[in-house]
C-alpha cells in the first residue's frame, strides 16, 4: 500500500495524497480500488491545471480592473458611531497593489488570549494599556506661573488609575523625553521648570507647554485609538495606528492571531509569507466589502507575484513592472522617456519575448494560438543548402 502512494509522489500534490490516504483508511479500500481512485485524481488534477499559453496575468488584471470600475470611489466608511475609519474600496486596493510604504489608515486587529477574551472589563484594561497616551490626555490643567516662571500641571487622578500609571512613571518618562527640565512632584501633579533661563523665558515656557502636551506617557507608540469589539464569542481590539512588534510583546495578546494591515510592517516582523497572506486577506476584504466577487486565485496570483523576490514589490514602475526585461514593455507603462533613455545608455537588448512588445510590432503574441510554432531544425549547413538551391532555381 505504501509503495502505491510513493509511486504517485510528484504526480499529485502532497495534500491530495495525504487526504486520499486518510480517506482510504476510513473507507477500508483495497489497493486496486485505491489505484483506480488515484488515476482518476490525476486525470482531474491535470484537467484543473491551467493550460500552457493561458494569459493568466491579463485575466487577473481584468478580474481586478472590471470590478474596480464599480467600486465606490474615495468613500470613508463608518459602520457604527465609534468604529475606526478605514480606507476602503478602490483607494485601498490601489494602496495594497502599489505596496505603499505609508498607508492612509493603518490599523490592527488584536486578538486576546482565550482566558482574557471573554470578559469585557479585562479586554478594556488590555486596550487601555495598549493605547498610546499623551500627557494632555491625563492632565486636567496646564498653568503657566509667570511669577515663578514655571509650568504647573494638574493630573486627572481617575485617568491615571485607568491606564495603570503612577505619577512617578510619568515624571520619568517626561524627563527622558525632554531634556534640560527639572520636575517636582506636588499633591495635584507636578511643576516643571526649565533648567536654563533665556531672554525669552515666557516664550520658551509656552513652547515647552505645547511640547509637553504631545509627550508620550504610556502605552504602545503609534496606537492612537483602541476599540474593543465583540467578534463572535470573544472580544478583540481594533486599533487606529499600528505597531505589530510591540503589541506582540504584550503578555495578554494572542500573538498567533493578531494582525496589522500594514504590508511592510508584517513583512518586517513576521516575514514575507505573512506579508503574502496579508495581501490576500486585505485585497479579499476590499473586494468582499464592496459586494463584488473575484476568484481567490486571481488574488493569489497577484500576492505571489508581489512577494516572489522575498521583498514586497508593488505593481508600479519602480516595482514589478520596472523589473520587466523588455524596454518596450516598460516604456508602454508610465514614463516612457526615461526608460528609452536608460535603455539607450546601457545598450539594452529587447528579445521581444512578451506580449506588449509584439503587439507594438504587430507580431503574433506568444500566447494562446500564437504560442505553438512549427519547428524545423535547420543547422547552418541545411540553410546554406536551401539558399543555394533557391539560387539555382532562380537561375533556371
Amino acid at each position, binding site marked *: 500500500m505504501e509503495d502505491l502512494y510513493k509511486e504517485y509522489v510528484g504526480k499529485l500534490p502532497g495534500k491530495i495524497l495525504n487526504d486520499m490516504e486518510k480517506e482510504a483508511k476510513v473507507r477500508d479500500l483495497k489497493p486496486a480500488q485505491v489505484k483506480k481512485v488515484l488515476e482518476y485524481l490525476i486525470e482531474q488534477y491535470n484537467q484543473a491545471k491551467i493550460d500552457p499559453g493561458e494569459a493568466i496575468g491579463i*485575466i487577473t488584471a481584468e478580474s481586478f480592473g472590471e470590478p474596480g470600475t464599480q467600486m465606490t470611489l474615495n468613500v470613508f466608511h463608518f459602520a457604527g458611531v465609534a468604529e475606526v475609519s478605514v480606507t476602503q474600496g478602490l483607494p485601498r486596493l490601489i494602496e495594497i497593489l502599489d505596496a505603499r510604504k505609508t498607508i492612509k489608515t493603518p490599523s490592527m486587529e488584536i486578538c486576546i488570549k482565550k482566558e482574557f477574551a471573554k470578559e469585557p472589563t479585562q479586554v478594556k484594561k488590555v486596550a487601555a494599556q495598549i493605547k498610546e497616551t499623551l500627557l494632555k490626555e491625563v492632565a486636567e490643567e496646564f498653568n503657566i506661573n509667570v511669577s515663578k516662571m514655571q509650568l504647573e500641571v494638574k493630573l486627572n487622578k481617575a485617568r491615571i488609575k485607568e491606564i495603570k500609571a503612577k505619577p512617578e512613571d510619568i515624571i520619568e518618562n517626561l524627563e527622558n523625553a525632554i531634556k534640560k527640565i527639572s520636575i517636582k512632584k506636588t499633591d495635584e501633579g507636578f511643576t516643571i521648570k526649565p533648567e536654563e533661563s533665556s531672554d525669552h523665558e515666557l516664550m520658551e515656557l509656552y513652547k515647552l507647554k505645547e511640547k509637553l502636551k504631545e509627550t508620550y506617557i504610556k502605552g504602545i507608540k503609534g496606537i492612537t485609538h483602541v476599540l474593543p469589539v465583540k467578534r463572535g464569542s470573544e472580544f478583540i481590539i481594533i486599533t487606529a495606528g499600528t505597531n505589530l512588534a510591540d503589541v506582540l510583546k504584550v503578555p495578554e495578546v494572542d500573538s498567533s492571531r493578531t494582525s496589522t494591515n500594514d504590508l511592510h510592517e508584517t513583512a518586517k516582523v513576521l516575514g514575507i509569507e505573512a506579508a503574502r497572506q496579508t495581501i490576500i486577506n486585505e485585497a479579499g476584504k476590499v473586494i468582499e466589502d464592496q459586494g463584488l466577487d473575484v476568484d481567490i486565485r486571481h488574488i493569489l496570483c497577484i500576492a505571489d507575484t508581489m512577494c516572489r523576490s522575498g521583498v514586497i514589490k508593488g505593481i508600479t514602475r519602480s516595482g514589478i513592472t520596472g523589473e520587466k526585461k523588455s524596454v518596450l514593455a516598460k516604456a508602454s507603462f508610465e514614463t516612457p522617456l526615461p526608460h528609452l533613455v536608460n535603455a*539607450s545608455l546601457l545598450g539594452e537588448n529587447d528579445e521581444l519575448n512578451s506580449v506588449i512588445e509584439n503587439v507594438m510590432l504587430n507580431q503574433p503574441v506568444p500566447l494562446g494560438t*500564437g504560442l505553438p510554432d512549427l519547428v524545423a531544425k535547420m543547422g547552418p549547413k541545411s540553410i546554406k543548402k536551401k539558399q543555394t538551391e533557391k539560387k539555382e532555381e532562380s537561375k533556371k
Partner: protein
Amino acid sequence: MSNKTDVYMREVFIGQVDSPEEFIKKVKQERREGKIPEILNINYNKDLNEIIVEVSRGRSRRPVIIIENGKSKLTEDHVKKLISNEIKWSDLKKEGVIEYLDAAEEENCFIALSEDQITKEHSHLEISPILIMGLTTSIVPFSNYGQSARLNRGSKSQKQSLGLYASNYLIRIDTDANVLHYPANPIVKTCNSNIAGQENHPAGQNLVIALMSYEGYNMQDSLILNRGSLNRGMGRSTYFKPYSVEELRYSGGLSDRICVPDKEVKGYKAEEDYRLLEEDGIVYPEATITESDIIIGRTSPPRFLGEMDEFSISANRLRDSSVKIKPGENGKVDMVVVTDNEEGNRLVQLRIRHDRIPEIGDKFASRHGQKGVVGLMVPQQDMPFTVSGITPDLIFSPHSIPSRMTVSHLIEAVAGKAGALSAERVDASAFSNKSEESLREMLSEMGFREDGTERMVNGITGEEFEAKIFIGNMFYLRLKHMVGNKLHARGAGRIQLLTRQPIEGRAKGGGLRLGEMEKDCFVAHGASLLLKERFDSDRTVVPICSSCGLIAVHDVFRKKTFCHRCGGNVEVNNVEMSYAFKLLMDEIRSMGIIPNVKLKNKY
C-alpha cells in the same frame, strides 16, 4: 456692542435701526404699496443681528401669495376675474396679492403649502405645489407618482423629441431640423402643458401601448412597433439638412465660379456625375439625390500661382471644387436659395429633405424617462390583439418598470385609455391630478377592466394569452437620435498620413478603433493571430540591413537594395512590422538614439 441692528445694502453698511422687526415690516409694507421698488428683498439674520437688503441683479426669485392676518389675499373674486381675463398677473402684483421672494427673504417667511393649512403664523401661501419643478419637468404627467431621477430624464427626453418646432419651418434653413408628420395634442396633459406650448407645437403622438414581451424583441429597453401603424404614418418625420456654397474671392481678382465645370478643368469627374446640375451649376429642386452625388458645381482658381508656370499647356487651369452630398446621406432637394452674403460673395444654399420612416434602431420615449430603441416591426396581422380587436401600436417591456419605479408611466397608460374612450383630456398635473380611483371608475363604467388589463390574443398562433395584458394609451415621443444618422462601418478606407492608421470619425469614413482594453480581451482569450490580423491596418514591410540593423533602402527603379551606412554589398532582409513601430524607431533615431533591429532566423 450696541443693541442696534446693522443694515447692509449691496453689501455696504448703510446704517442702524433700533427694532429690526418693525423696520422690516415697514419696508415690506411700503414695497407692497409700491413706494419702494418691487425688486427689493430684505433679510434679517437674527444670529448676526444684521439686516441685508438686496436689490442686485441675478437673484432667482419666485412668486408667492401674501397672507395677512391668517387670510390669503387672493380671493375668489380675483380668481373669477382672472378666469374671465378682467385682470392680469401684473394687476395682482400691483395690488399686493402676489410678491416675489428671493432665497434670503424666504428664510424669514413661513409659507403654507395649501389654503387649508393656513394658520396665524403663516406669512405666505404657495401658488401651486407644481412650482417646485421647472417648466419641462412639470409637463411630465402624474409626476408625483414618479421617481425624481426619472422625472429629470423624462424632461430631457421631451427636449429631444420631434414635433412641429416652428410653423414657418418650410421657409427656414436650420441645421439638423426634424418635423414630425402627424403630431398630436396629448390626451394626458398637465396644467403647464399649454404654457409650454404643447397645443400649438405638439411633439409626439398618442399611441396604444401594450405592456408585454413578444418574441423577445423588446428586451433591454427595446420596443416593438406595429408595421400597420407605421404604414399609416405613425412616427414618420422629415429630416432637413442644409448645404451652403460660397463663391470665395482670392487675391489677384480671381474668384470661385458656381457653374457646370468644363471638361478641361483639373479634377473633372465623369459627365455622368454632373447630370443633376442645371445650366447655372445648381441642382434642380425635387431632384432625387443619393450618396456622393454632386449638388453644386464650382470651379476654383489654381491654389498656387506657381501652377500657372510657362510649362503647362493651358495656362491658368481651373480646379474643380464641386460640392458633393456627404456619404451616407440621401433624399430630395427641397429648396434652393441664391443670395449674397455679408461680404458680397454669391451664396447658394440648398436644403435636402429626407423622409424618415421609423426603422430598427430609431429611438422612442415616453414622458417618464422610459426611452428605448425599436427592436422589431411586426406586421399588423401578427401583432397581438385584444378580444375587442384593438392592436397596440407599440409593445413595451414590463421589465423596464420595477427597478425604475416609474409608476407614473403606468398611470398615464390607464389615464390615456380612460381619456381616449371617454373622449376627454385628463389632467395629470403634479399633486392635483385626476385620482387613480376616479380613473378606475371611468374605465369600469365604460365596461373595461378597472386595472387597465385586457384579454389578448397572440396574433401569430391565434391563441389567447394566459395572462391579462396591460394595455392603454400613452403619449409617445420620437427622439431625434436616428440610426440613419449614426450607422457606420467600413472596410478599407482613408488612412492618416503620419501613422498610416485609419482616420477617425464617421463623417470622414473612418475606422472603428480596437482600443487597448479590447486588445486585452483578445490577449486574454489567447486569440493571438486574430489580434495580429486586427492590427494589420498599418502593416508595412521594412527592408532592414542585417549587418547594422538600421532601415535599408529598396530602390525600385534601379532594382537595388542598399544600406545608407554599410553600402550596397550587404544582405538586406524584408521585415514585416506595424508602421507605427517603424515611426517610433524613426523618432527615436531623430533623438540621437540608434535602435538596431537584430535579425534572427525564427526557425
